[in-house]
């Protein structure tokens, strides 16, 4: 399976290597660098590269390439999924997954990688288990360790590893028992020039932060579970129960985890919360172009549209843009030709607009492509799909936990995102 792992930073240096079988020379990465050079953008490096003796499968996250070396047939998604899991684990342990963080914690990183794979086959990838084996570095623990000489490596086999609920460790204790659920939704939409929606879909997740003592058994029911078109679950969710009753029944892992991700696709359900009026023109023969953009809220049920960020890739011929925003600030990068306008909150009484001229390269012909406009935004206290949690019950433990549900929606790939109301049950 996975032979070796190389971490490559943006400037093309290998800053960490780990081998699970016999050592593979780092020169194998030359093939990767070749592909990297060929790609115009960092994202364009092909995820699977074939070399004479090995196969390289890479993942790009946080501007670090995680390059896995494979020697024989293995499902590529297997490796890709694992690499993403590694990144998630690093993020979980160190807060951020940057080159500096990895270099500072190289010993923990090595211990983690050692536990996560045995002979190239995933051994322990559940964060709960890993945390029992290797305690995450905190300032307090480092101090204690230096004084007492104790280690941050667990001596016992994590209980989860053997139990039927491998995702939860036993003996969890909290003084404040709390369970928080965030319903986060993203709209992903393509809108054509005239403003009509080409495609729109909602992708949602329920992220949970559960800090409950003992072995609680939770059930979460929805007011309108039929909304959920397609779902994927954390392994803890009892699938049979969902099939039969549309109720989420599970013994939660300890701490943060993603309980569920779902997909709402039918187009009529998706209301795009903003509209854009735009007029971007270039005249033939003139070195000037006009730029006029106005934003307005639409179907937001009285909720404010916040944190609006508009970005647009202007045509190559544009030298500079001289614009005047009615609110917020804008930047134009003359190298990448990327215009970004940080609008902030949209005031329905006074719609934000960005007007002005663009100067074109002298002699350049009129650009014939249409710039695309990407919008990001947040709306608080509004559920775009209308999904509502009905109730959350706990069985198996005696105490009364504090339960909270937060709805919110984030920016999708193309259009928008929201934040919903806060409610307690």
């Amino acid at each position: 399976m996975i032979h070796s792992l190389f971490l490559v930073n943006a400037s093309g240096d290998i800053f960490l290597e780990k081998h699970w079988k016999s050592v593979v020379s780092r020169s194998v990465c030359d093939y990767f660098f070749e592909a990297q050079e060929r790609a115009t953008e960092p994202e364009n490096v092909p995820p699977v590269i074939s070399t004479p003796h090995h196969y390289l499968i890479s993942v790009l996250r946080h501007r670090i390439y995680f390059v896995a070396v494979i020697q024989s047939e293995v499902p590529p998604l297997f490796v890709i999924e694992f690499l993403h899991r590694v990144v998630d684990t690093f993020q979980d342990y160190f807060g951020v997954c940057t080159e500096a963080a990895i270099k500072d914690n190289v010993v923990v990183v090595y211990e983690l990688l050692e536990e996560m794979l045995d002979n190239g086959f995933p051994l322990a990838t559940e964060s709960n288990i890993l945390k029992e084996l290797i305690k995450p570095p905190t300032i307090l623990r480092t101090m204690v360790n230096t004084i007492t000489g104790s280690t941050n490596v667990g001596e016992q086999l994590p209980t989860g590893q053997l139990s039927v609920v491998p995702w939860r460790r036993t003996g969890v204790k909290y003084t404040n028992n709390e369970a928080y659920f965030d319903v986060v939704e993203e709209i992903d939409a393509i809108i054509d020039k005239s403003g009509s929606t080409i495609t729109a879909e909602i992708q949602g997740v329920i992220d949970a932060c559960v800090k409950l003592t003992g072995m609680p058994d939770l059930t979460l029911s929805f007011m309108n579970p039929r909304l959920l078109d397609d779902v994927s679950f954390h392994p803890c969710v009892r699938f049979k129960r969902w099939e039969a009753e549309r109720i989420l029944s599970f013994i939660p892992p300890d701490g943060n985890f993603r309980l569920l991700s779902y997909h709402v696709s039918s187009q009529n359900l998706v209301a795009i919360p903003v509209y854009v009026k735009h007029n971007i023109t270039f005249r033939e023969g003139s070195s000037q172009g006009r730029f006029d953009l106005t934003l307005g809220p639409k179907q937001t049920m009285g909720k404010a549209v916040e944190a609006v960020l508009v970005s647009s890739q202007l045509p190559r011929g544009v030298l500079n843009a001289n614009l005047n925003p009615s609110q917020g600030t804008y930047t134009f990068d003359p190298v990448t030709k990327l215009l970004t306008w940080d609008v902030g909150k949209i005031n329905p009484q006074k719609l934000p607009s960005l007007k002005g001229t663009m100067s074109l390269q002298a002699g350049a012909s009129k650009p014939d492509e249409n710039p695309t406009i990407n919008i990001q935004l947040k709306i608080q206290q509004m559920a775009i799909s209308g999904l509502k949690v009905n109730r959350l019950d706990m069985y198996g433990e005696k105490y009364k936990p504090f339960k909270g549900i937060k709805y919110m929606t984030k920016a999708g790939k193309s259009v928008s995102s929201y934040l919903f109301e806060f409610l307690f049950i």
Partner: protein
Amino acid sequence: MVSCRCAETVLNMRSALVSAETLQLTLKPEAPRLEEQALTLQSSGWDKETGKHGNEDLKEMLESNKESLKLEAMKRVVGLIAKGKNASELFPAVVKNVASKNIELKKLVYVYLVRYAEEQQDLALLSISTFQRALKDPNQLIRASALRVLSSIRVPIIVPIMMLAIKEAAADLSPYVRKTSAHAIQKLYSLDPDQKEQLIEVIEKLLKDKSTLVAGSVVMAFEEVCPDRIDLIHKNYRKLCNLLVDVEEWGQVVIISMLTRYARTQFTSPWKEGFMFDDNEKTFYDSDAEEKKDQEETKPYTMDPDHRLLLRNTKPLLQSRNTAVVMAVAQLYWHLAPKQEVCIVTKSLVRLLRSHREVQFIVLQNIATMTIQRKGMFEPYMKSFYVRSTDATHIKTLKLEILTNLANEANISTILREFQTYVKSQDKEFAAATIQAIGRCATNISEVTDTCLNGLVLLLSNRDETVVAESVVVIKKLLQTQPTQHSDIIRHMAKLFDSITVSMARASILWLIGEYCERVPKIAPDVLRKMAKSFTAEDDIVKLQTVNLAAKLYLTNSKQTKLLTQYILNLGKYDQNYDIRDRTRFIRQLIVPSEKSGALNKYARRILLASKPAPVLESAFKDRERFQLGSLSHSLNSKANGYHELSDWPAVAPDQSVRNVDVIEPVKERAPALGKTRKNKSQDKFYSDEEDENEEEEEEGSESSESSSSSSEESCSESEEEEESEKSSGDSGKNSSSSEESDDSEQEEKKKAKQKKSKASADSGSDENGNGPVGHDSCSSAESSSESGSDSEDDSADSPPPQKKNANKSQSKVVMDNSKNQVSLLDLDDFSPVPVNTSQSSVLSPSLMSDLEGLSLSNMSPTLQVTSPTFSPVKTHELLHHMSGKGLSATYHFPRQPCLYQPSMVSVQLTLTNHSDQILEEIHVGERSPAGLSIHCFNTIERLQPEASVTVSMGIDFSDSTQAANFQLCTKEDQFNVSIQPGVGELLTPCTMTQQDFSKEQGKLMGMNETSATLSVSTAISSAHAVSNQVLSVANVGVVSSGSVSR
């Protein structure tokens, strides 16, 4: 040395800073920051020196007596390894610490050993005895890690020791150690393939392991060591299928792909002609083994039950969060499932498209291959493949590929419109790919060929060179497929020739003019003239085509072009490129007659101007089909090392009995239980009928007693009109029947008719919706009505009586709400011999029915909403006393939650306690009365320990009556008759509605709906809260803020 330690500490502090909470941040003053910087500078300078004598320092530290110093040194050694620096000279110093008590130090030493043991084999042997001792450690983690390291040390001398350790560990009590031994098998095999036979024995033993922890790893070992020993799987096949859901996700991937290969060798193809499976087969049979067998017997192809088992057990994994698992299931269905069932993977694959870029890439590749064979699968999701400006180029091209594959007559206009925007994309590479895609659409779908061609010609005037060039190339291919009447396009291209600089495009135009020179007799020689001028400056590919053009013109129009041709041939003769020189020589011999030129000369015309077959524009993914989906080979489109090809289905299935194991399968046990509930469900109308009977007796003369009983509980909003029409239908039914039959026989008749009816609609939960006391909100009822529509369509094919019923149903739907509709149906159905109804039914087609449904939906009041229960009573009732139950006691209470088994059921929670002193086994629900009572039983409880209790939930359909539900509670030896009697309040469900709707509903209620109870409220507690609490304790109602209790 001390400074070094400080640096390390501070480094750790800094890392912690990043994630530290504010509290810790405030603790940290400014000063240490500066100090820290100074220290890191110092330490980095120090690091540089380590190249020379730094390792000496480390050696000293490792040999010191202090644990902390050793640990420190090891951490730095690991740092060196991570950077890829050589630390092998420290081996003797490090290996001494292998027996350290400090676990962290030990682990770091292991890391070092695994890395360098291969290089220092002799020294590595020093550590072996430590591991051998650790293998006997009582702590399973230590045993496992010792085995891990021992097997990771690639020293051939210790192979016998490893073999022994593996064999021992494979029999270990701890599944974790057994899992480690499965991993060790692969390591040993790669170290010494001669051990294969012995290792296979261990694999065989481990395959029998029942632990989910081991399953994934041992299958992995199987795949690596002996993938061809399919015979080892036979006995474990069913166990693996059943364990699959509980295996950890990585193991699932491996097992699924192994089982895919296995199934292809053991089962016959489900794709044979004449094989027909119900569309709803999947959902229908999921839980029902019994019926499946019946079904299969009638079919020409019978699926092996084991084959079905695999498909059924992998299906839930489509919901996994692990994309690799989803993909593995998808490929399993693609390669193994009957064609009709493959579609269920579509949704999940489309979901994966929202994942990371790399995941998208792989999934899109697989979808591209799938869409070539099965367009229909992904067509409904076409919009998910629309390109976004933020996509990476390789994602964009893959999406384009898929869109092109999906194009058909119906959606081509949408796709072409989408393509138009892509052509304008700033990513020119992508724009060029789009033009090729347009070309493919044009050849595949003849209706749009002209449109596409015109569009491409327009693109010729595009400013971007790559776009123009690509258009030319594609137009060339298109013209070749239909060369008639396109001389104007060729002429247009000849005009553009001067402005086009991309050589591929120029070459294409030259070829076109040459090929169709007879259609453009005036232009062709002129183009040749221009080419003669610029010949030397052209690219090779253009030169070759110029020579071709010259030759063709020489043959067709030698008068005008003879000199030009000779000039070009002379130029070509002295060209630098040997290809061009060769071509020139060949052409000259071919076309210019001379004494030496042989027979070929005669055929020059036929050779050069032969009609050429048009190029086939097809998907680049066409040849990927040969690889198993989701595999690395598929992704690379070339066979990867260790790729096992999927075998073809065997013509005759090998012996099935090899998979028989004596142990009873757990899945089999579940199936009959569910089958039972279904049977009961189908009889539930029988029971509700009795209830009707009772009511009718009590309330003589009221025709619509049934409808009132349900609508009262339901309190849905319907218009008066609906009510009327329903009443009249009920009337007519009643009158006609009463003239024919006496009262008693009428009841009999009713029963039969209803039974029939309920059988037909056994599966449509929505029918039961109507008279259900428990909630369905406006949304769910809307959907369920559409569901019932589709169900009825299915049913209609079955037999004449249900068809009639369905027609009636749909007809009544025009004016009625779902619940009403069902009740009126019962009336109509009872008197089905009456011809009035049948005449109406026959004219309704399914499409009309769906239209009508739409109407009925719009009739629904949007205000109806079931509210959540505001109160759950704690009062429990005794079901079975332990004295009469021979130690088994049972209590029940109503949790007042919507029952999820079926909306019409009331959920009941049963607490079973064993008061006896022996274990009670197989507690389950037995016979029930009335016979039609619909109960959703709890799963059979295998065993109940003494003094243990278990709470199970069940659903009972009381059919809105307070009549007790009687059933038997059975244990292995005994049966106890018990009965549950609900209070009226428990049958209600709280709804929120406006005052208006409420009064409207109230008006519609007939009699028989009032239940009164006296509440004694002491004067002391007169607050609204107290009153409502009192009310809530007897009835499941919601609280309305205005103070008026709903209903």
